[in-house]
Every structure is written in C-alpha cells, then in structure tokens.
C-alpha cells in the first residue's frame, strides 16, 4: 500500500482530481514512518530498535556490565586477591540500611559480623551471623590502593567496611576467604574484554576475507569457502585443548590472555566472513551498485561508499551475536583449566572453584559467576536479535 497521510486530509476537499495524483503525493509520506523522509539509515534503525523492548532492556543491562568492567577497582569493596584465612567459605551477609538502637533509628548501612563455631562431629567451621556486632558500611570508604584507569592513584571504593580488615562479603567468600563480589567484578572486566577483543579480531579477519571473497569471487572465493568449511567441521573443544596445551607454561598471565583471545578469534571469523560474503554477493546484483559503476565511480568508491553502508548494520548484528559465543568459549576453556590461569580472574576461572559438588553443597554462592554469564549472554543475544530486526530498515 502506498496510502499517504496527505490523502486523508486532501481527499475530502479534492473530490475532483485529475490524473496528476503523483504531484499530490510530492509531500506525502509512507505509512509507518511519521517523518518527512529525511531520516538517515541510522535514525531508522534506532527507531526500530527502540520498539524491541527486550533488546532495549538488555542494552541497559549490558551498559551496567560495561560500567562494572571499566570501574572494577572502584566498585570492588575488597581486594580480590586479598586472602583472609579466617573467613573461608563465609556465607553472604545481608546489607541492612536502618540502624536501630536505644536512641531510635537512623539510616546507616551495616552488616552483622560472623561468629565462627566448629561443628563437633565433622570438625567443620560453621559461620553464624552475630547480631550483637555490627560492621558499619561506608560509601567512598578507604580500602586497598589502586590506580584508576592505570593512572590515577586512589584508595576510595564505592562501599567498604568502616575498618579495612573487617569482613564484608555481600555474596560470600571463596576457599581462601576472598570476597566473591570483588572477584566477580574483576572477572567481568576480563570476560567481557575477551569477548570484545576476540570479536574485533575475528571481525577484522572476517570482513577482510569475506569481503574479498564476495567482491572478487572466483578461485579465491572457492578456496576460502573450503577453508571455512574445514574450520567449521573441526570439533572445537579438542582443538582448543590442543592449542592451549601448546602454549608455553612460562608465559605471563597477560600473554596467555592474548593467546586465548587469538585462538578464539582464529576460529570465530568464519561466521562473520560468511555474513560479509553473502551481503557482498547480494549487493553486487543490486541496480544501484551497477548505477554507481556507470556513474564512473572507482571500485574502491563503489565498495566503500555504496556497498559497505548497506551492511555495516548487518556486521554489527553478527558481531554482537558472536560476543556471547566468545564469552562462553573463554568460560569453557578456563573452566577446564586450559584457558586463563589464576591469578587472572575471569568468570571461567571463578567457576573452576565450583567444580566440586561437595564444595557447592556448602558454598552455593560460588555459582554466582554462572549467573553473571547467563545474564550477559542472554542480554547480548537479545541485543543481537533486536539489531537484526532493525538492521535493514528498507525491507518490508
């Protein structure tokens, strides 16, 4: 239907219309678009993305994750590497806001201290909440020293106990009495950046190889397609295991980190290359691409000016759908002990602690990183879905 808004008002007054309906449509707008036709592709995409509620919510969630990753040191209440042997497997403390005592009440957040008892039969230490001792929690409390963005030396944290060494384990502590919340916050940084850097690297490979294959076709296209098919037919876990086993043991955690992302992206580019190649092939037969060639535009200009804008949105979509795969792959590798190694903290490394079912029975909060992974992966997938639906605003 090319019904127009103008028709609504015009048709009544305009009972005697001659055949120049086209002229009457000059200022007309197509239905579904409340604009005057001067919106760029990105404005249209944004308008359509906004209608995807799940994706919008997910975008906010990922924004929170990103802020957590960027400001990890500031947000972590405790040093994630700080071992407090007294508090191994301490359960989560509830945060209270209203402080009641004999004088009445005021708003002052606090947690209760722990009482440690040793069970007689199993000789196991059991933590009980000691309601007689309050540990006050302060905002912008002084804590461990760090450098914000690696530059600004600081020791303030969003929250922290009034006294530095007092226990504050909002989601419990691990085997060595380290604060799980702080470790989870630090893990967010590593896990998300592995996803992001890994996808950027595979994006580079994918766009380059897929673009060349799609634009020039022929032998190069056939060769890359076979390579992609071969790579995709490899069972991934044994391959990762082989590759990470081949990594020298004496590498620093940073080197291992980059090697892992490289391994992930070397296998991850194939999907993106296919997307890019497919778009190139589809676009090559579009009349407007022929028109640009007939305008005398060079090949480079045809590709960059006329073809690439048509699929940047598709690339962004494919990339955002690839990030969860990367995160999951890193988690799987680290979980198996083949990826990142302690002292580097990632979600997968944290989950290593949750491998033992008996440990899980006593300290189920060790699964918290699993929850973070689920939320992050689902959110990224929803964002990808929303982008995919919004990606091509010109299809009907």
């Amino acid at each position, binding site marked *: *239907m090319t019904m127009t808004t103008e028709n609504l008002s015009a048709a009544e007054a305009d009972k005697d219309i001659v055949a120049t309906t086209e002229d009457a449509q000059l200022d007309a707008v197509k239905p579904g678009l409340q604009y005057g036709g001067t919106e760029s592709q990105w404005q249209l995409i944004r308008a359509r993305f906004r209608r995807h509620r799940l994706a919008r919510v997910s975008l906010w969630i990922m924004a929170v994750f990103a802020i957590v990753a960027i400001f990890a040191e500031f947000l972590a209440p405790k040093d994630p590497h700080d071992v407090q042997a007294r508090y191994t497997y301490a359960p989560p403390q509830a945060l209270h806001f209203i402080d009641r005592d004999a004088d009445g009440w005021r708003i002052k957040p606090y947690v209760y201290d722990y009482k440690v008892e040793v069970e007689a039969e199993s000789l196991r230490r059991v933590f009980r909440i000691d309601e007689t001792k309050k540990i006050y929690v302060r905002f912008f409390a002084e804590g461990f020293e760090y450098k914000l963005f690696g530059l600004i030396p600081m020791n303030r944290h969003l929250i922290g106990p009034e006294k530095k060494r007092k226990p504050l384990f909002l989601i419990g502590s691990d085997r060595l009495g380290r604060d799980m919340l702080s470790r989870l916050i630090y893990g967010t940084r590593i896990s998300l950046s592995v996803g992001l850097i890994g996808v950027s690297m595979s994006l580079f490979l994918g766009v380059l190889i897929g673009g060349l294959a799609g634009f020039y076709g022929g032998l190069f296209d056939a060769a890359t397609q076979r390579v992609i098919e071969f790579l995709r037919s490899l069972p991934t876990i044994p391959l990762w295991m082989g590759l990470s086993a081949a990594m020298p043991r004496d590498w620093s955690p940073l080197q291992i980190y980059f090697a892992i992302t490289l391994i992930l992206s070397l296998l991850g580019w194939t999907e993106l290359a296919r997307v890019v190649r497919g778009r190139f092939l589809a676009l090559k037969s579009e009349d407007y691409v022929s*028109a640009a060639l007939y305008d005398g535009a060079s090949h480079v200009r045809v590709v960059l000016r006329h073809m690439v804008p048509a699929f940047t949105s598709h690339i962004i979509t494919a990339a955002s759908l690839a990030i969860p795969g990367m995160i999951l792959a890193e988690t799987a590798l680290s979980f198996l002990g083949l990826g990142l190694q302690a002292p580097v903290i990632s979600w997968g490394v944290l989950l290593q602690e949750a491998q033992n079912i008996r440990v899980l029975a006593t300290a189920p909060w060790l699964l918290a990183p699993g929850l973070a992974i689920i939320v992050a992966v689902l959110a990224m997938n929803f964002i990808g879905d929303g982008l995919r639906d919004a990606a091509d605003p010109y299809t009907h």
Partner: protein
Amino acid sequence: MTQPNDDVILRVDRLNVDFTFGKMNLKAARDVSFDLRLGRTTCLVGESGSGKSVTARAIMNIVEPAVISSGAVTLFDLKEGEVLELASLDPDGAEIRAVRGARIAMIFQEPMSSLSPVHTIGAQIIEAIMLHQDVDKHEARKRAIEALRDVHIHDPERAVDRYPFEYSGGMRQRAMIAMALACEPDVLIADEPTTALDVTTQAGILKLIRELQVSHGMAVMFITHDMGVVAEIADDVVVMLRGDVVEHGAVEQIFHEPKHSYSRALIGASLGLNNAEARPAPPTEGTPLISARDLSLFFPGQRKLLGKPDPGVQTLKDVSFDLWPGEILGVVGESGSGKTTLGRVLMGKYQPEAGEALYRTGSGDVRDLADRNSFRDKQVYREIRMIFQDPYSSLNPRMTVEQIIAEPLWVNNIAKGAAMRDRVAELLEIVGLSPAMMERYPHAFSGGQRQRIGIARAIALEPRIIIADEATSALDGSIRAQVLDLLLKLRDELGMAILFIAHDIGVVRYFCDRVVVMHKGQIVETGTAHQICDAPREDYTKALLSAVPSPDPRNRKIMPPLSVAE
C-alpha cells in the same frame, strides 16, 4: 438483507477498511459499494494505493493488519436462497473458511509466490478440492486433471505431476486459475493476474478467464490498473481513487461518457499512448552514434554433476542495428528475447563472442563497445547513461537524493560543493521535482518520483545516449505517460538519443521514432514506429501487436465483442 431479484451474487455495501499506524488512521477504502453479478466481469481500476486490492481482500475478510470498520459484504446463494454476511464473520472462523476457495476464489499477481514450490501442481489442486468437496483422492485427481485441461495446459495427465518451477509464468497463472476454479466458485477475484506477464501471455490468460466465466457462469471481479485490459474484458467498471469509488458504471459508459474527471484522465492517458500520431522520425543521415554489427552472445549452461548438461542459451544472434543522433530507438520483445542483454552489452557488462558495436564518442574517436577496454577511462560511461527498470532497487536507500544525483558529478570532477548543489537543484527542477526534496532519502518517494530521480542522475552528465531498460514498465498507466512525456521533453531539449527497451509494444507508437523487434535473440523486424505499429510485415510482430489490449470496449481485439443480447 433481502434477496435481490436479479442475478446479484455478491453485494458490497458501504464498506470501510481502516489501517492504523500508531495514532494515524488511514482509510484504505471508504464507503465502497458495488454488486457482482453472475456471468459478468466487474473491473476495479485505479492506481496503486487506490484501495482496489484492499477491497478484494475485504470481500474474503483477510484484511489484516487493517480492520473492516463498517459496511457489509453479502453473499447470496441463488439456488438455496440463503444469505451470508461476510464482513462481520470471524476472520479465522469456520464459516468464512468454508466460503473462501469454495464459493469465492482468488488469484494473485505473482503466481510463483502463491504456489508451494515443494508440492506438485496436482497435489495442490487435489488438496483444494478435497478441502471443500466430499470426494476421495482418486476422484479429486481426476477432477484436477480436468481442471488443468480446462485451462488449456498441454498434456494435463503429465502436467499434474510437475512442480511449479517446471511451469512458465503463464502456465503457473493458468494452474492458479485451475486451482481457483476446481471447486466451482460463484465468484472469482483476480488481483492483477496479468501484470507480471508478457502481452502475448496476458492475452491468453484474459481469453481464458473470459471463456471460463462463460462456461461456469460465475461472477468475475478483475483488479487492474491497465485501462486496455479493462476495455477488453469488463462488463462493469468501478473506478477507485484513494479509497473512494469515484465512478461506477457499464464499460461503454465509462469509456465513452466518463463523468468523473479522474476517469477521463485515466482513459485519456491510455488512449494517448495508443492513438498517438507517429511523429516524423529524425533524419537518419550523417554517421550513426552506435553502429552494431552481428553481435552474438552465448551463455553456456551450467555443467551438472549428474544428468544432462544444460545446453545454454544463445541470447544474442547476429544483432545489427544503428542508433542515430537524437532518435528514440525502441527495442521490443517478450521476456527472454535478449533485449535487456543487448542493453547490458552496450554498457560493457557482457562481452559478445562475435560482432562489434562501434560508438562514435563526443571527441570524435570510435570505440568498440564489444571490447571491455573501451570502458577503461570511463568516457563511455559519461556519454552513455542508463535508466533502470526497478525504481526501488536502482536508488541506494542509504543516500539522500542529493548524494545520488551528485554522485556522477562528484566522481567525474564536474562540480563540487555549492556548484554541485546548485546543479542538483537544477536537475531536480528539470525532471519536475522540487529542489527542496534533495535532503530526503528515496524511501520518501513514490515509484514515479523515484524514476524521475533516476532520470535526473542519468542526465546529470549531459549524455549523448540514454539506455532506458524497461524504464516505465514498473509504473502505473498515467504515471507511465508522465515519465514518457518527461523523457520526450528531455530528448528535445538536450538532443540525446534514447535506446528504449520495452516489452510493451503499446508505448512504442507513442514514444519511439524507430523500432527493433526482437525474438529469441534475433532481430525479426526493423522499421519506423509508424510502420511497425500500423503495417507490420513479420508474423511475430503482428502477433505481438494483436495481443496489446485496445483501450476501447467497442473495438476489442483479444475478446469477442460484447454480444448485443447481453
């Protein structure tokens, strides 16, 4: 409602259909009323967006996402005397489903998308029969074969087991009709069933529908924007404009005493194309711009792993013609005749195996367009420009109109900055658009406007030749005439030659100076437009011409004239 006395089978009464977009409410059909009678064809005419298809869908009660806000669609059962009101039924209910397909059948413009590609034609017809009639599979198959025989499909016993992709476009439309008629409906709704077809195929389908209507005695509602088709088949005509019925009457009255100015304009536009006096052709003296000799192009078939190799197609065979300065040369033929390939060869997309196409450039040297190297320095691209068939895919949706039209100016270093902007504004004015629109994106324009933008891009470099590949086939009647007039005006003002590729020989008389008729890759006849249209020599040209619907109901070419008894 009481049963009317005459043979009215379906009555549409003050039907309103609304589309809602957020807060906007668009009336797609407003107080539409008309009757369908057994044995008569009612044509709904109007341009795209006039509400014709919506009305047809409202009769079947399948208007989603729109809603039928008021009005009635009443279906009468003349034998039983029953009356059924369709518009108020639940669109997913059993009652309306018993009507769809069985008592009212519908055929669509694009038969391929209405047929399931994974089932045989026969299986689909059999399913339709068994859904609505109480027969066993064997009997249903027999009826399916009969139905295919009725629509003149050759060898129906074997065709019944074929898949849709094995059928040609015309055969698919025949199969759709067979499927629609398998349950012997009282009403057949045909929504632009011939728009996607060649004129000769169209003539066959029109004849078939008419024939089946007489033998089945059903009512036909035929939706089209082509006044020629209306004149050929209609008994009654309903003219729609933007959701309103502006005129309603017998075909004779509509064509010969139209009351509404819009009807007059519609008929005028189609008559103008057909009754145009052939203009004197520009003198063909001096040297031709393009002189093509014996162009031959063979597309080899795909080598297959199994089975017989595809023999390939001889797309062009010894094609020779001259294009003289300032003339409009029409290239006509059915789809598959090689006319589009010919255009592509001249633009350097394909290199023919044999022959040459010598082009005399503006600077005086001669280049062979059959040679890829002639296009190296882009001079040919500056002098020979192209207008594309599909106004939707030929404009980059991600660029503004200004960027689209300015592209050739920019890449050829002709104008930059403010000068470029001024030139774009000037070009927009030349093609009849407002310069204020240059910041908009193509999605804000209608098909005709888009084609004007494409023309502005083509003339931006002041070309010597324009190749217009089916440039007007995607446009509705009156808009087509406007675009043709624009091209004629530009030819007179800018003095370029136009190679006009078209499957519609109807527009050729109006638009072209000389015509080349192509068939299966060969040129069968060359002559002035006057001579080709009025005194064709070759049988193929005669067949093509006789298939063009004539926009005068008193002078039917395809159909037998209306009998006086009717």
